[in-house]
């Protein structure tokens, strides 16, 4: 049936364009912070970064440590890399635990558009947290210089910046991908923690015990591969490690998760 005939038969859709992607994105961004849980999460992420910086500043000043801008940013990154994935997880899983997916997907039946809008919202929150970390790091670095009575050391560099950016984005996306896969908050959090903290340890033990495994491990250790990002530029094999391990831990769960969301019966 042509759309013209359809219009004359029932509803006239000539005046309604599809929902622009920008609008979906803005709504998803709003949804991530308009609940108490969401606001707390972003608040705690920012607060924890601030706390980590402050403690680091006090310790560095007290112990007279050689500290540069990069070190201050790293202190903030330490906490946010743990909490950003939780933000990524909640973006997806809260729709299912709170059953709002029913409303979301009736207002926009093209589910993948919603998922992309959510992913972009997650990236925006990541960018916000990164910008915040960079800013607080800058202030702390200046304070440190004043306290120490020396000129600030701005060692950080673009490679460090990009490494930081990619690292944090991957952290958020890792949580996002697992949430798409499990569509359940607790399961996603547990598996994320296992993948971030336990798997690297096990891989390390394996590598220490077996030589053949130590050659193989970098290809599946996504955390180690990401650590290299701080020392850009990467070598060819380092890129290889990053791509292969990223494929295993990021692309595969995301792919399966998207397929699942697309076909799931929304209850």
């Amino acid at each position, binding site marked *: 049936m042509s759309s013209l005939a359809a219009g004359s038969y029932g509803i006239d859709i000539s005046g309604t364009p599809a929902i622009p992607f920008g609008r979906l994105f803005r709504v998803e961004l709003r949804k991530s912070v308009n609940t108490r*849980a969401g606001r707390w999460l972003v608040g705690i992420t920012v607060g924890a970064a601030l706390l*980590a910086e402050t*403690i680091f500043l006090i*310790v560095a000043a*007290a*112990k007279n*440590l050689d500290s540069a801008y990069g070190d201050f940013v790293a202190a903030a990154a*330490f*906490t946010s890399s*743990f*909490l950003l994935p*939780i933000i990524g997880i*909640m973006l997806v899983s809260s729709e299912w*635990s709170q059953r709002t997916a029913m409303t979301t997907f009736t207002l926009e039946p093209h589910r993948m558009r919603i998922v992309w809008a959510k992913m972009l919202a997650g990236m925006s929150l990541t960018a916000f947290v990164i910008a915040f970390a960079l800013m607080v790091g800058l202030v702390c670095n200046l304070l440190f210089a004043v306290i120490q009575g020396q000129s600030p050391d701005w060692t950080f560099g673009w490679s460090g910046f990009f490494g930081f950016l990619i690292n944090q984005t991957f952290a958020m996306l890792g949580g996002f991908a697992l949430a798409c896969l499990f569509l*359940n*908050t*607790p*399961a996603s*959090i*547990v598996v994320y*923690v*296992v993948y971030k*903290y*336990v798997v690297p*340890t*096990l891989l390390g033990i*394996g590598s220490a*015990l*077996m030589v053949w495994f130590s050659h193989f491990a970098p290809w599946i250790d996504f955390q180690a591969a990401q650590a290299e990002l701080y020392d850009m530029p990467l070598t060819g094999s380092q890129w290889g490690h990053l791509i292969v391990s990223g494929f295993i831990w990021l692309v595969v769960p995301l792919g399966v998760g998207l397929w699942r969301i697309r076909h799931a019966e929304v209850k």
Partner: protein
Amino acid sequence: MTVLAETPLNVTGTRKIAFERLVRVELRKLADTRAGRWLLISVAALTALVLVIQLWVVVAQDLQVDFSDFLLAMNTPMGILLPVLGVMSVTSEWSQRTAMVTFALEPSRLRVVAAKLVSVLVVSVGALAVGLLLGALAQLLYGVLSGNELVWGSAGTLAFNYLVSWVLGMVTGFAYGALLLNSAAGIVVYFVYSFVLPIPFAIGAQLMDWFDHLRPWIDFSFAQGPLLQGSLTGSEWAHLATSGLIWLVLPLVVGIWRINRAEVK
């Protein structure tokens, strides 16, 4: 008064709900949902998987191991997942809103909380039994496959210590669940406490001597470390007790107080 008094509710024939019945019900509730069942299955399956991998590696590499090594390996899945079960045993009542039914059937909330705590202890004991069985099986297989002599070490002490460690883990999870009454928040806080917090503690201890001395008294995960090694000295027990007061007893008390006071919705 000439008006006939209203017949009071005849409660002579009904006794209070027996505590062990509450415990049995709480145990059942841990396993009769998909989430709970999967969690229990995951614990057992991952423990078995870890042991198989370990067995395979040590035999292939011809390594010398004893029983304590097998126990140490399975502490990884148990130590991570049991506390999650502890968190969920409280929070699922609130996220699924079954607390309304539970507290309507037994209005004395402290009894329910106590029953939940006991059920969590029972699961820890069960986990230990399964773990010891799987560990012993792995050890025997190791003997057969490698031909090495079996070293059991002080298996009794270790078994007891692991039980203490898992019980502490589960109850800590339970405490955070009670404190926050929300699965996601409870699990996140537990993981922050067990994976993230030790890192700044370690860095602090490295940088500052005074902090290094203070650390065992305030870092509960650190204080639990010796449990996995063997028997504890008196001061190590003291560390465990003091840090446990901060990270376990305090949140647990506040959490139970909160459950007792909360409006159940």
